């Protein structure tokens, strides 16, 4: 708590924390959008979401280590994760689509443990990161420093989010996905192969996570156990922002990023993830308390 007065004495420092938070938030929002897609279309809450992000980070890390440019790492991570997502759907996820949500949660929890231990075994438990080779942008006479890679990651996340929305609105597959989300039975009757749509949805989500993971590896660090906080963050953004509007999702992501960064600054970095988890519990309890007054429950 001793850091709190520093923020009031140094408005520039507070602004720095806010900017960092917003830049992080875009990546959170991207991952959350993928989770919302899977949740909305397939009625599956994917606990392995964070592990897909981690996997994407490792793919990008291997690509860059092989001597290829980081930008290509993002593309290859997305493509590789598309395949992983498709495979996971064919092996596991198709059995839990639209069924008991707890079974889906537990199955994806098992998957998350499987993936994180597999990566731990193959790549080792060390912390890794990708050197992007970009500099740092210094503004306001040295008071605020923003690494350029964070700006690039922010822009990439926003662009990907917008591309995703356009894809869902305009493309044939996107329309099929939305139709299936509205009413899977009606979509099936009208000749949409819903199994293919589900597979594509999950693969698309995995690809989004892959790209986001590559961005995470470039802006921060990756290690095999980083998954769960990302899953919890995306879950939180989804329940706050809903799934309709990319702008609200971005806003919620930025809000979470800023809140989390302030908490990390004020309480100390070791409490930052604990803060995220507690915030989720607080939000859930608050929402349910509001609903109980109308004699409803959170569904």
């Amino acid at each position, binding site marked *: 708590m001793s850091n709190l007065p520093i923020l009031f004495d140094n408005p520039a420092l507070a602004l720095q924390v806010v900017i960092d938070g917003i830049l992080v938030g875009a990546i959170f929002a991207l991952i959350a959008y993928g989770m919302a897609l899977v949740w909305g279309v397939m009625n599956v809450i994917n606990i392995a979401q964070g592990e897909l992000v981690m996997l994407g980070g490792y793919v990008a890390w291997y690509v860059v280590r092989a001597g290829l440019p980081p930008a290509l790492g993002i593309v290859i991570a997305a493509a590789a994760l598309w395949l992983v997502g498709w495979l996971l759907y064919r092996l596991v996820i198709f059995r839990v689509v639209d069924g008991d949500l*707890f079974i889906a949660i537990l199955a994806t929890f098992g*998957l998350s443990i499987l993936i994180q*231990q597999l990566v731990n*075994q193959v790549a080792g438990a060390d912390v890794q990161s990708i050197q992007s080779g970009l500099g740092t942008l210094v503004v306001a006479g040295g008071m605020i420093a923003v690494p350029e890679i964070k700006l690039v990651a922010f822009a990439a996340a926003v662009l990907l989010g917008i591309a995703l929305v356009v894809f869902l609105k305009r493309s044939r597959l996107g329309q099929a996905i939305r139709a299936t989300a509205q009413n899977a039975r009606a979509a099936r009757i009208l000749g949409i192969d819903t199994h293919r749509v589900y597979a594509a949805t999950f693969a698309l989500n995995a690809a989004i996570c892959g790209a986001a993971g590559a961005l995470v590896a470039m802006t921060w660090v990756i290690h095999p156990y980083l998954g769960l906080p990302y899953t919890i963050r995306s879950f939180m953004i989804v329940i706050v922002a809903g799934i309709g509007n990319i702008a609200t999702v971005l806003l919620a992501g930025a809000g979470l990023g800023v809140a989390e960064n302030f908490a990390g600054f004020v309480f100390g970095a070791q409490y930052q993830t*604990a803060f995220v988890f507690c915030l*989720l519990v607080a939000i*859930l309890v608050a929402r349910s308390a509001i609903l109980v007054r109308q004699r409803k*429950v959170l569904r």
Partner: protein
Amino acid sequence: MTRRGGPILLGASLALLALAFPRLFPALTTQATFLWLMILFALTWDILGGQMGYNSFGNILFFGVGMYACAVVQRDSGLAYYPALLAGMGCGAAISVALALLLGPAILSLRGHYFAIATLALGVAAGDLASAWEYIGAGSGMTATLFPGAVGERERFFYYLLLALAVATFLLVRWLYSRRFGLALNAIRDDEDKAEAMGIRTTRYKTIAWCVAAAILGVAGGPVGNVAGFIDPRELAFAGSTFGVWMVLMAMLGGKGTLWGPVIGAVVFHVTQEAFWTYLLGWQRVAMGALIVLVVLFFPAGIVGWLRRRWPQRFSPARAGESAESREPAMRNVEAIDSPARAPGSPAQRSSA
């Protein structure tokens, strides 16, 4: 041999084996101690998860709290070893119950997957907080107080302590399920709104059930910390991705919502897990993840559920010691009328995000 002679004989020989185990297989005592812990885990998880339909991923919270409370009492109280251990276990239970009472009404107002994920977050948050708090050793953990006896005696002492705790837990939950309390939990599982409309004080029952689970786990935490010798905040005390998930898996593997299911599931699971450690060293955690996925996808009804489907007359609920329903026919009739098509233990939950 009479019809009941077989089970009695089997039970007696198993009890004898359990009592004589440390003498027969001294090298395996610690593994067997953890077997009792696993049975205790599965039984306590099933109070909420199986009987009440509240699938918690965060029960590990109380285990860790109990473990740390006991270790702190042992470190700071200045008592001799055994009184300190006893005081620590009591203290762990008290703090766990207080925490359950405090969090209960709020957390238990969440339903279905929201409850599952909120409890998951609670468990992980507790681990993060414990590994940042200097008073309890932060990330470097705590070392348990040295056992005063001879070398092999420590293992034996804690073996019998955990055995006693597991048996006591079994008897306690069997007693609870045979009473009105068990019926209330089942009513909440089958349809909470209806149960409330029928006059069951759902919040009270849910909180009490959580407190029972918290008390047992709080008591068990202390001895386990001493068995392990070293308390790591994330790997032992608040081990959400091992113990926390295993609780769920063991209950499900045995058959959730049954009395014997968690016990059977815990035994099968623990033996499998030890085999993984022996034969797949290095890959055992990967195999564990795969096992979770396989059990959840292909065996959600569990061993007892499978037995009941395969031999319905032999393993029907009335024979397995869960004759609770037959005592209050009125309740059963209401349920039968209301939800004829619903399978117990799996209230169909549809969500719209």
